[in-house]
């Protein structure tokens, strides 16, 4: 219950993300979504190794591995977060988050290994579910997609259970 979780009020940030959603619908005819960009980037890496193998995958026949709006969005996010952190004096420059270190120690390899495994499971889940916290959790939910509300509830169930196992067992 820390009042200073972020530099700005949660309600202000939420309102601005809501307005940003309206802007992406209006100007780009696209909802905010992030996770597909990782799949496209991974497909581009796959193309470097074996283009034919990558192109044979059903998923990459529907979702082309290329730089498009969503990939540019992710590049922009990296820049935007950097600008926000620099201007707010919040650059962390750390390999292991404090909360993790309290619980699991300062071993960088352990943290990176868990982040990699967690990332892989997260992405597989996102693709299977059809979106992530942005695509389902914000964009799909605000459009009243049944799938998004189902997925959003499952996101929280899975995450609350796992986080409590990690930190309270």
């Amino acid at each position, binding site marked *: 219950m820390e009042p200073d979780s972020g530099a700005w009020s949660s309600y202000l940030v939420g309102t601005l993300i809501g307005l940003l959603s309206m802007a992406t619908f209006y100007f780009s005819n696209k909802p905010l979504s992030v996770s597909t960009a990782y799949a496209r980037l991974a497909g581009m890496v796959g193309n470097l190794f074996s283009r034919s193998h990558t192109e044979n995958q059903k998923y990459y026949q529907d979702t082309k591995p290329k730089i498009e709006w969503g990939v540019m969005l992710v590049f922009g996010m990296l820049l935007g977060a950097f600008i926000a952190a620099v201007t707010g004096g919040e650059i962390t420059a750390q390999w292991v988050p*404090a909360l993790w270190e309290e619980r699991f120690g300062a071993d960088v390899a352990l943290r990176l290994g868990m982040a990699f495994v967690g990332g892989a499971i997260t992405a597989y889940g996102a693709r299977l579910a059809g979106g992530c916290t942005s695509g389902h959790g914000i964009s799909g939910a605000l*459009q009243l997609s049944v799938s998004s509300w189902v997925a959003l509830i499952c996101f929280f169930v899975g995450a609350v259970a796992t986080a409590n196992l990690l930190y309270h067992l």
Partner: protein
Amino acid sequence: MTTSSNPSSESAPPVLIITPQGHDKSETHAAGKPDSPRQLVLGLLFGVVFGFLLQKGGVAKYEVLMGQFLLTDFTVIKIMLTAIIVGMVGVFMLHALGLVELHVKPTRYAANIAGGLLFGVGLALLGYCPGTGIAALGQGNYDAIAGILGLMAGSYFYAETSGFLVSTIQKIGNRGLIMLPDLLGMRLAVFLAVFVPLLLLGLYLVAQLAP
């Protein structure tokens, strides 16, 4: 529920005005066609704003996301619920005015549930969402690099299995582009008139119980 497009009745606008992309069918619906330079620049700009906001909101911090799942910090729910309410009212208003198209996601119950639970498990192990992970890297949480590589690896592995999944789990409970009011047999406007106040009440309760 309709996800249909709006009538495109406008004549060619002056060059300096940024027009809604919704009117340009050829660009947005042609599958193989690359995004225009304009779309790419817009994507980058929207990304800068999104990443900036996520960082300012604090959700790029490992402690804040994990705090949500450990139920000690409700920043994530406050931001998401506020964004959903504002975006919901705004996008349906724009849609009623014929200014935007909807992009409702297809419902496939088995895949939504299995994928959603899996996503949650991964999220708690990683400590970042796909979106906040990028923002985390932007603010200097270098462990997000391993997370991002994992996200790419997991995505590629999904693609490897996608042919199999399409013919199995994705067929179970496949309902297409359904929306919450469809489940209740309600009209969209009526549903919104009930649901938006309920979400506001939920946000108010969260604000009271976890200030």
